């Protein structure tokens, strides 16, 4: 092959696309492996003779596991509701009110999301030990509210910034009270951002382990329980739980793109 042909190929990006394809295999192979392993009758994937769903049936008998699933939903939903309250009010504060130290506040709110989870975990652990709260659902919830609030706040403040103040001014000029302006104008405009942020925050909460691991006593969420199962090695049951978590996360993500993705499209049109 001559070098001229080589550069022509490069222009169309065939080499690059091939490289990208390899990376996609790297990204998705592990996820596929987990799902395939979960249907294997034996521990190994190679020489897999047939397909079984017996591990899934076994999961349904595991009351401790089912309890952990329930706990994860309890923590996730509570954390999302609290984060919506803190995050949305914070978003309005940071976008609508001019006050000194805004940059500092913005940076500090980001911290729980950008710092290594181990720092959030250990500072919260030291804090709750000092104020004598026993390790419980409450302590895990505190951890989860710490990182779900920035998610909501930055999603919502991005939306508020994009829509500008004109609609609110128009409503007020037409005689709407601040409450009516919020209820009939602002809230519908940030609705999809709220739903998207809530789904994103729930997904992160449902999968979180690094911070939760510090704050967990005997009341366990699903990832912490699954981590405990790993102490006895990789069993087909571990794969089955993993596969279910994987499918659940993927469904949440797909649902999320309906809200977050669509607003990204609008943004492009406006530009």
């Amino acid at each position, binding site marked *: 092959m001559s070098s001229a042909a080589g550069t022509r190929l490069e222009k169309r990006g065939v080499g690059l696309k091939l490289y990208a394809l390899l990376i996609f295999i790297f990204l998705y192979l*592990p996820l596929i492996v987990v799902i395939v392993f979960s249907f294997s009758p034996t521990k190994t994937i190679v020489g897999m003779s047939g397909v079984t769903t017996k591990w899934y049936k076994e999961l349904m008998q595991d009351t401790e596991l089912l309890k952990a699933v329930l706990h994860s939903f309890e923590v996730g939903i509570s954390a999302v509701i609290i984060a919506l309250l803190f995050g949305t*009010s914070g978003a309005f504060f940071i976008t609508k009110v001019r006050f000194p130290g805004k940059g500092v506040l913005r940076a500090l709110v980001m911290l729980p999301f950008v710092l290594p989870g181990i720092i959030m975990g250990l500072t919260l652990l030291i804090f709750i030990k000092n104020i004598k709260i026993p390790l419980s659902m409450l302590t895990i919830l505190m951890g989860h509210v710490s990182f779900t609030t920035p998610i909501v706040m930055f999603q919502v403040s991005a939306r508020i910034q994009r829509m500008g103040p004109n609609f609110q001014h128009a409503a007020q000029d037409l005689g709407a009270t601040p409450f009516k302006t919020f209820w009939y104008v602002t809230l519908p405009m940030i609705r999809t951002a709220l739903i998207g942020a809530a789904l994103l925050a729930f997904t992160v909460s449902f999968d979180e382990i690094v911070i939760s691991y510090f704050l967990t006593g005997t009341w366990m969420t699903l990832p912490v329980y699954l981590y405990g199962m790993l102490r006895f090695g990789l069993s087909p049951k571990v794969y089955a739980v993993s596969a279910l978590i994987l499918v659940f996360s993927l469904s949440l993500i797909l649902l999320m793109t309906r809200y977050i993705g669509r607003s990204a499209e609008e943004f492009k049109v406006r530009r």
Partner: protein
Amino acid sequence: MVTKKSRFDNPRSYTKGIPIVLWLLFLVVVPLIFTFAMSFYRSEGLVLEKSFNLENYKLFFTDSVYPRVLFKSFRMALGVSLLSIAMAYPIAYVASFKMVRGKNLLFMMCIIPLWVSYLVRIIAWRSILGNRGLINSALMIIGLIEEPLRIFLYNKFAIIVTLTYICIPFVFIPVYTSLEKIPRNILNAANDLGANEIHTFVNVVLPLSLPGLITGFIFSFIIALGDYIIPLQLGGTQGIMFGNLIWSQFGFAFNWPFGAALGFVLFIISVTILGLAAKFGSTEGGFLSE
């Protein structure tokens, strides 16, 4: 009402900020202060001696184990970040410049792994690299080896692969965002002036995408530096990283004051690095904004 002279609003409107400031105080600032205070305490067995002394920090700097592990974690984080860039930048480039159709799909495909359970991804890599894992099984079937190789799991290699896997979306998102912001007519101009794709890339695209690249680099560096679960799960004895040292102070070593001090060291390092990101990187990482 719209035209206000003052730079700041009437303090009465600050009430809106009360919830977020309370959240910040109780879940971020006060816990950090407690941690800082505890890092000066001493632990005598199970009793906590609440006095002010610098023993913990002295131990950190004088016992060569701790700076050595920190340095090892730095090197590993650097390697992971560079590898993540090598893998994420080209796909961001392809997604931004080479795709006509399926651009959004490609974008979604790259960030989906980010939101898939961290623990599940760790389990996946254990199952690929393990003794009876995918790689060993495949090698045995094609007859290259007779016995499973133990070189894949419980070493630095396994940690690096898994951390890189975790970090790729964190590099991809800011790089893709900065590539998308490059006006396409600049590329046409470079092309008209006779630059080929490589010249255009080196002289135009790469410099303009640098803020996103720096942000991605720093995000993956911090993730790799602070992680403790991946080294625990895949690192074996070679895999004791700085995060594990911190974690063990709250676990079996049971020396919370020393753990607090180590945690505070990591906090200072992370905040310094994040400050650099704010200065040189793109302002929006693209994770939290839409």
